[in-house]
């Protein structure tokens, strides 16, 4: 790769490839200890330790889901109350207009429905998906991330980022391959 390509603004980061999850998590921990903050690990299956090692420990998905569920429950009950007490009061067999025991089931179903949709949509939105383009796919070996290999990418936007140093740092880990990724 030419000198210009390495230093131009088109660089997304430096990516290293690993064969085992151990090597990846170890490299993530070292990178974090070395002061890198803007980096991401790529794995073929969920590896919680990798997320922790790059300093990502809390997601807001559960909180969003809880809010969705509460909203769903309230709107489920609210709908039935509004229909049977306010909009269209109808005496059926002398039961009270607000016959709450009969309203429990739909309230429950709406809670689940809203919470489930919020969990999925929230997860996708926080992840920034759907995303038609991402620079990391420019790496010719990246197809292996959905197969059997593990990747760690230190991104160029990191304050501490320097191509030569990042490359040297990643080469010192257990990486089998280190390369620059164009933006």
């Amino acid at each position, binding site marked *: 790769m030419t000198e210009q390509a390495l230093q131009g603004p088109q660089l997304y980061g430096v990516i290293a490839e690993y064969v*085992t*999850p*151990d090597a990846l*998590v*170890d490299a*993530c*921990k070292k990178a974090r200890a070395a002061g890198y903050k803007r980096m*991401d*690990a*790529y*794995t*073929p*299956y*969920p*590896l919680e*330790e*990798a*997320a*922790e090692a*790059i300093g*990502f420990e809390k*997601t807001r*998905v*559960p909180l969003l*889901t809880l809010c969705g569920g509460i909203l769903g429950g309230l709107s489920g009950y609210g*709908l*039935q109350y509004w*229909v*049977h007490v306010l909009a*269209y009061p*109808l005496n*059926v067999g002398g*039961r009270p207009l607000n*016959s709450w025991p*009969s*309203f429990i*089931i*739909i309230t429950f*179903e*709406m809670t*689940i*429905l809203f*919470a*489930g*949709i919020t*969990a*999925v949509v929230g*997860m*996708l939105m926080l*992840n920034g*998906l*759907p*995303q038609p383009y*991402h620079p990391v796919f420019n790496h010719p070996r990246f*197809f*292996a*991330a*959905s*197969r*059997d290999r593990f990747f760690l990418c230190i991104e160029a936007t990191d304050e501490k980022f320097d191509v030569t140093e990042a490359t040297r740092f990643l080469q010192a880990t257990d990486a089998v391959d280190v390369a620059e990724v164009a933006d």
Partner: protein
Amino acid sequence: MEQAPETKASTTLERLLPGQSPVLTPGHTLETITDKIVSIVLRRPVTLGWLGGFAFFFGLLNLLMFAVAYLFFRGTGIWGINIPVGWGFAIVNFVWWVGIGHAGTLISAILLLLKQGWRNSINRFAEAMTLFAVACAGVFPLIHTGRPWLAYWLFPYPNTMGVWPQFRSPLLWDVFAVSTYATISALFWYVGLIPDLATFRDSAKNPVAKVIYGLLAMGWRGSARHWKRYESAYLLLAGLATPLVLSVHTVVSFDFAISIIPGWHTTVFPPYFVAGAIYSGFAMVLVLAIPIRRFYGVQDMMTLRHLDNAAKVMLGTGLIVAYGYTMEAFYAYYSGNAYELFMFKNRALGPMAWSYWCLILFNILIPQVLWIRKVRMNPGMLFGTSLVILFGMWLERFVIVVTSLHRDFLPSSWGMYVATRWDYAVFAGTLGLFFSAMFLFIRLMPMITIFEMRTLLPQSKLSEEVAAHD
């Protein structure tokens, strides 16, 4: 199977029951698992067997289209239903199909929460089974309404008539329960597919397939941050689907139990319906899994252990169902209610007695062979037993719907029920819908969850020194 002593047991079950056959035959690596599952869809040509099977069920699907078109043209009079038996096959089939779907959710959600790693290879197609079974179930209440083009009246929407649905009615609860169930099942299935679709995108050689799988994968790249949110959302969905699946068949049983018809008005209905649903659902899982593992050579991923476990679940839920039948008889006697007592006598000795005794035979007596380990380990015999159970569970709903309705209170309003050829055509047609969808699914989507299979590998776990670094 022999495992090196230092290899970590990959599931709770393995730790509890050492020495059982494994959930994944040893020798696999991340690479071989991926290649094996990907090749079923992307590398293998369409076989004559697949084409023949698909053509047969697609023919049945066309029978459904024809039967439904004629139904819309002539009305529900072409069916055997009339007063007093107004429900007939439509509701029998509806309950049967919804019940079959339940095993898929049980496998994907409840077994996930219970950390049953063996579920990983069967959950994907079990979820697909749920989705297609719910689709088949959804057909029946719609076409049974008589004027299906007005079925949207079931939903609460502001309208110029100024009227609203009756939320105190179990039939409306059913609308909400089943539509929520269909939505959550579809979401659960799709979310589970995303990482595997990315694998397909990266492995596909055909550019069109690459683009389609790429669009469906939404740009998934396996980022550690994404995985973390993904796992969290997936676990939450499982937690939400667990009470949901129990509620759905409970609500279906309320359609019966909330009414005052003899034989329906009992408190045992919800638990016994849920158990029956899982019973028939696992039977369908086996009916699908046994040919699939044979024809696609995935016996190393769907092992005898899976068949054994599924058979044990059937045995357990089958006994709960047997308890339900016993309790129905006991209620009839103990209630002291003349109509309840007559209902039971009529079931066992009346003109429909054949259906009751077939039900006892198929659902309670024959499945007791599952106590024998040799039967549980023999795919052929399991397949046969599962078919018997599926038929038995269909008969159960037939007995409940028809024998209770055809002779209820006043002898002057008793009647008989005989299904017509159109009843059978619609039922066979939904079998066509279900199996043609399954055939397409197997050829187009990863039928085994690739990324979850990877986590079953001992080498996918961190070594203790790295894990304990913090």
